[in-house]
């Protein structure tokens, strides 16, 4: 992410902005290396830490875009849980692995679309289909699938179109929308799983995603790590080198400026959520492979870890600022703390305090850096 900064006296603060989190990672890692020794430094442990970062990391790559755009997603954990349940259900119904993967990712994309649509205030476009689906499910056992489909579609269309017509757009803060979804999606996952984990007969090789293989690239690190790296790279490039990416920054920094400069604000927002929560869908695939089941209660608390990764990585919750590399590093820092504390035999509560302190310290350091740059 570097670029020639000759002529630029602010090169140092800029470098710090990019590498500050990296310095933090090296410092944290070195600290644990010193304290716990060989066990922590072993290559196998590095690999393990990368693998432990994969699920939160993938979701955080998406969340970076949301936070840069000035939004927030509190429903990541619930989305992941819902994704694992949907994927497991497809597998249990005899679906192919590919179908399960696609269904899981599609869950993320759909949740993203719903989130974005609610944020920009087109509530009817979400309420219509949601209501239609619900009525369809109620009708299906009595009237058969075709009638249920018809009734559902008509409901969706009527509520959607009429609602859109008779009510003004009601933009909502992403905090509120995703706070609602945080509960609702978790509930939906529980409902779909009938209040218990969904065990497919086999996860169709998805478990291999989170384990290193005997040979090839996957011997170096599990496929999940490569997926994380690939997604992170793709997102970093999109944010920096595409118009969409620059629009996301503009939107997060000042929505009105973005509008004035011709950015289709609403459309961009919806796409940010689709793409970002789509990443949470990918994270759900990894989680499904890791658990070998669909668990409606899994990934609880991930939403905050994801936000923490972004913030430690230098993203600003007021938008317009953040980087994928920073987020990646932020996620790694948290894993290093977790892993290192375990290696030292420290209790869980120590880790939790340490992680909390790091989040606050990272932001404080960032503020301090920003101030000394002025």
């Amino acid at each position, binding site marked *: 992410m570097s670029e020639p900064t000759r002529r*630029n006296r602010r090169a140092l603060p800029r470098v710090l902005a990019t590498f500050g989190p990296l310095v933090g990672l090296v410092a944290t890692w070195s600290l644990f290396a010193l304290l716990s020794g060989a066990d922590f430094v072993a290559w196998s442990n590095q690999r393990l830490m990368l693998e432990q970062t994969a699920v939160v990391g993938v979701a955080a790559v998406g969340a970076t875009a949301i936070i840069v755009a000035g939004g927030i997603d509190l429903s990541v954990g619930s989305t992941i849980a819902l994704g694992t349940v949907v994927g497991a259900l497809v597998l249990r119904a005899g679906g192919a692995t590919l179908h399960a993967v696609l269904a899981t990712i599609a869950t993320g994309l759909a949740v993203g679309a719903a989130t974005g649509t609610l944020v920009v205030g087109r509530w009817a476009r979400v309420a219509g289909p949601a209501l239609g689906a619900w009525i369809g499910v109620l009708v299906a056992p009595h009237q058969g699938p075709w009638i249920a489909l018809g009734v559902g579609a008509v409901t969706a269309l009527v509520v959607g179109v009429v609602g859109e017509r008779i009510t003004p757009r009601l933009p909502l803060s992403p905090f509120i929308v995703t706070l609602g979804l945080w509960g609702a999606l978790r509930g939906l996952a529980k409902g779909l799983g009938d209040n218990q984990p969904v065990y497919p007969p086999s996860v169709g090789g998805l478990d291999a995603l989170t384990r290193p293989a005997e040979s090839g690239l996957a011997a170096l690190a599990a496929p999940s790590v490569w997926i994380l790296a690939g997604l992170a790279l793709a997102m970093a490039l999109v944010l920096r*080198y595409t118009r969409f990416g620059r629009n996301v920054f*503009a939107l997060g920094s*000042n929505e*009105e400026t973005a509008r*004035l400069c*011709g*950015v289709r604000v609403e459309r961009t927002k919806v796409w940010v959520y689709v793409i970002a929560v789509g990443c949470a869908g990918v994270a759900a695939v990894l989680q499904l492979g890791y658990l070998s089941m669909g668990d409606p209660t899994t990934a609880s608390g991930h939403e905050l870890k994801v936000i923490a990764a972004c913030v430690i990585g230098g993203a600003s919750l007021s938008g317009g600022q953040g980087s994928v590399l920073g987020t990646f590093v932020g996620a790694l820092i948290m894993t290093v703390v977790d892993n290192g504390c375990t290696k030292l035999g420290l209790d869980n509560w120590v880790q939790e305090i340490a992680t909390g302190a790091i989040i606050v310290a990272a932001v404080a350091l960032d503020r301090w850096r920003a101030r000394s740059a*002025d």
Partner: protein
Amino acid sequence: MTATDRPAPARLTMRGVTKRFGATVALGGVDLDVRAGEVHALVGENGAGKSTLMKVLAGVVAPDDGVLELDGRPYAPRSPAEARAAGVVMIHQELSLAPQLSVAENVWLGDLPTRAGVISWRTANDRARELLGELGRGDLDVGRSVRDLSPADRQIVEIARSLAVDARVIVFDEPTSSLGSEDIDRLFALVERLAARGVAVVYISHALEELFAITERFTVLRDGVSVATGRTDETSIDALVAAMVGREVRELYPRSPARTGDVVATILDLAGERGVRNATLELRRGEVLGIAGLVGSGRTELLRALFGLDRVKSGDLKVLALEGPRRPAERWRQGVGFVSEDRKGEGLALGLSLADNLVLPRLDRVSSLGWIAHSRVERETARWIDRLRIKCTGPTQRIAELSGGNQQKLALARVLFADADVILLDEPTRGIDVGSKAEIYRWIDELARSGDEPRAVVMVSSYLPELFGTCDRIAVMCRGTLLPPRPVRGLDPHEVLLQATGASA
């Protein structure tokens, strides 16, 4: 100041006030005398040290050297609270009220009257009403949230707040920048009333004409030093400007001969979803068209509707061969540019770099195959920084770190970078220093009248001298209706004002 010409005692005296920030000398020995009951103009370009001096006065910044006296006693406030307690009050450009709280609460902010430790709302409300009454606004509902008030009324609340501490010195920092001309008149009356009560008023404004209307004496700051002081009625705008910039500004408003070309925009009976009720207009290349009117008359909304930021309800609209309303993205691509009146809230993304702000509307011009070439972005930005003489450390500097004048120049550069043929400027010189203003006027003249290509410029402004100085035609907007534009030659400012207030429509 000699001791002999001292009609009133000096309320505030500052002698040799010095302040350094690292290597930069913000104040290099400033002298200032303000008498009780006078309105004293403090002028200077941005960066001349006015705000640092006022921060010293308000106890925000401690001076390195120098003596301050208030009513003959040494005055060295260590905090804004101390300054306030001593009766020194600031009325800021960005009003410092708590928008969610009520008028009365704001008046007493930090000092709500209590009885036995419990806030006495009745006393608070009654006394707030009393203070507002002294300002001629006893009708203002003291229970209302401040955010529901107009900018003018918010200012009244802030002034009432200063009366609440029985102010001895009140500093007005750009008080008229968010007011329409009617409110300005009211404010002037109020300032005079304060002075008549014996308050020493320091009045800071970039609108120099205003100073002649209400101040008795002036002090000019340049590069942290007081370079001139005297009676306002014995000086002139040209002399003030010369003192401020340290050189003669030959002509604030350059005007090349008009060369009216083909029609670039036609509006017929346009009505917008808000603000604009009826507007008909023909805009030609090579001219600067001014739109005068009070704040809230629909001037801004007219530009916004033209640019696709506000919805159009009815009427015909044709800009550069494209009929009907269009989105901002299309307008930019088509060659229409817009500079917003609200630099911080809308015009610029302050957290982003100069480069990011400059190229945003036309990212296509710096990308190939949908891939943004950051080297090209920086090159283009550096070019425009040079051409508009924007003071900054480089294209990647955050725009929040620039002065208002330089920010505004970047907003204008964005329009130039986009190569706009039709340029819509909404209050383009609000709150910026004279030097930057002069440069923006020069650009306006060049864009429309003397550049290689005649462009059309529409300029909305509350500041009549500026409109008369730069425009070829002026149209007045009054309560949503645009009156037919008239050539500026032979037009009387007084008449424009009457039209704007609806008195002679």
